[in-house]
């Protein structure tokens, strides 16, 4: 009498048990039960642990068939990053030569973590999941699993289907679509109370340290200090880490940082990932280079260099960003490097081998990127 799973097993799986499952979750929906009650229902009816993971909404729940909650604690970010890397089984994708030349150890660490660009990356969910378990997608990325090997029988299939429908109803009701909450949490015009509410919906705690991240998709992305560092598949501007309420400032800074990023291609060499905190006084230039601003003559000079050969601009950028020409030449044969640079000299119009000339060159590249990305996303 106490064991719902045993009771269901005793019923005709095609008719009786399925009807009971439907009735069970209908009552939960009717009573506006929360996610834990729904996941608990799945575990209790199936007689095995059930879990819901929703990386985008930062939800992770795991319940035993006796109803007790065994949601694992979040893992430290470093452990999760390593796990993600192992799980993905993919090496860092190729980076443009200029980016490689400029990379320090931290950047290469970031590149090694092949987590998609840091949108609400989520620790603690994937631990110990078995691909053989029965599962169903609840909604955009949220997955409900019964911790038992499939394929599901008719009762298990019904449990998955009805529990997923019930969970979907809760997510729709209580978890605002992520984009809305994200827009609110970085909006300086929203009141603090409203922003904190949105942060809660995103699974953030008031004590969390979090940063905004800008990508060309124009949507705000967030990462806490526990999340793995972003790895730039796309141009990525990273705002400073701070309390939840400082996210509007972090977002503004991330958007500025994004304008200083490059595609990392021959036509647009430079770093794909820029931290706002590393820009220093350069950030002030962003306010000057607005849409339709006349190009500074030095930017036009770079464009002339770009027109001479496909490799020309990337070579020059390597020279600008590497600690020394010798270091820049590590990627290109030294004599080839010298040969190429002398070709470029004429087009550029100033000697970039002197310290002031090199600063001028770096500045020209920064201005060129601002012209290419003339607005905040």
């Amino acid at each position, binding site marked *: 009498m*106490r064991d719902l799973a045993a009771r269901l097993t005793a019923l005709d799986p095609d008719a009786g048990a399925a009807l009971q499952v439907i*009735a069970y*979750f209908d009552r*939960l929906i009717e009573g506006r039960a929360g996610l834990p*009650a729904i996941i608990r229902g799945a575990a209790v009816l199936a007689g095995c642990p059930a879990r819901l993971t929703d990386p985008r909404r930062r939800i992770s729940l795991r319940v035993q068939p*006796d109803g007790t909650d065994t949601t694992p604690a979040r893992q430290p970010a470093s452990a999760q990053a390593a796990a993600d890397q192992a799980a993905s089984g993919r090496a860092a994708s190729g980076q443009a030569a200029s980016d490689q030349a400029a990379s320090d150890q931290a950047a290469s660490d970031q590149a090694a973590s092949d987590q998609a660009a840091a949108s609400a990356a989520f620790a603690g969910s994937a631990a110990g999941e078995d691909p053989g378990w029965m599962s169903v997608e609840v909604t955009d990325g949220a997955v409900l699993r019964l911790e038992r090997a499939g394929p599901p029988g008719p009762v298990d299939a019904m449990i998955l289907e009805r529990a997923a429908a019930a969970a979907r109803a809760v997510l729709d009701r209580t978890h605002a679509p992520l984009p809305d909450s994200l827009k609110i949490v970085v909006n300086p015009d929203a009141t603090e109370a409203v922003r904190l509410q949105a942060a809660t919906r995103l699974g953030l705690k008031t004590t969390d340290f979090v940063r905004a991240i800008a990508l060309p998709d124009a949507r705000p992305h967030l990462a806490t200090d526990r999340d793995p560092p972003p790895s730039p598949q796309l141009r990525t501007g990273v705002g400073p880490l701070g309390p939840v309420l400082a996210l509007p400032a972090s977002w503004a800074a991330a958007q500025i940082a994004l304008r200083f990023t490059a595609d990392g291609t021959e036509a647009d060499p430079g770093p794909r990932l820029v931290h706002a905190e590393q820009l220093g006084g350069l950030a002030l230039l962003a306010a000057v280079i607005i849409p339709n601003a006349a190009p500074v003559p030095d930017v036009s000079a770079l464009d002339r260099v770009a027109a001479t050969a496909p490799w020309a601009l990337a070579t020059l950028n390597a020279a600008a960003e590497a600690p020394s020409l010798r270091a820049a030449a590590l990627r290109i044969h030294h004599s080839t490097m010298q040969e190429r640079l002398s070709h470029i000299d004429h087009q550029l119009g100033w000697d970039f081998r002197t310290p002031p000339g090199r600063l001028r060159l770096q500045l020209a590249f920064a201005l060129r990127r601002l012209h290419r990305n003339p607005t905040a996303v």
Partner: protein
Amino acid sequence: MTTDIGPPPPFDPELAAALDVLAVGLPPALTADMIEPMRSGSLLAEVSDDDLARGGAFTVTRRTVPGPAGDPDVELLVLTPAGAGPGLPGLYHVHGGGMILGDNRTGVEMLQDWATEVPSVIVSVEYRLAPEHPHPAPVEDCYAGLVWTAKNATELGIDPQRLIIAGASAGGGLAAATALLARDRGGPELAGQMLLCPMLDDRNDTPSAVQMAGRGVWDRTANDTGWTALLGADRGGPEVSPYAAPARATDLSGLPPAFIDVGSAETFRDEDVAYASRIWQAGGRAELHVWPGGFHGFDMLAPQAAVSQEARAARVRWLRRLLGS
């Protein structure tokens, strides 16, 4: 009075869902003609000695002890934790079943759960059931078993200063009545009384009894069936003894500390809340929990629900506080 009574409070969603699946074979209303089929049915699962032993965690013994004067002996089921030393708390258990159903194994697994957390010796009394044995047979059997248990506490491994009476539903009512008897006859000194959704009032006319008619578990009709089995034509009349229906007691002073819990969506809600209030008004000690949306016996039927887990934990916490363990 009844015009002021609103619709029934909603069940907790999880409990409602579980009730839907379990309701088959468990009608809210129970009439006299259903007593026999219920007794022989499978609803109250047989509990074997092996079940009780829990893989050696408990030693299971049976003692036949003197019943009330002139009446048959009473059988006590004794469950002792494995490797227990002397002087453990004693849990004297009175089973539920509406005065008409069950035996001394019914519901004892809940006390075993407590004893697993707070090591205790469990003594569960087999009392005679109504309607074959109307009042005072059931409560007198309970009292006789308690007197013997207190007298033989040391032999049972029980500290006589830490003997607690406990019961659910009709067992809660009988436990409360036994505590009144012990007080009034100068009988065993109890350290506490655990009254879980107790059946206390034969008048069966509180707002909650009216509200919940036809709903949940053990509704007003079932309650009428149980009380009428115990009291016959006297049920609801002026002559009912407080030892049959403790809600009838005019004096609730001098009782052991009480733990009372009940669901907000069950027949017994108002009589149980009133009992706790009257203990306080008499200067006594009571802890009252009203679990929102709980039907009668919700935590036994749906132990996995969040509210059931909390209700169960609250009992163990009270025991720990009471016993200082």
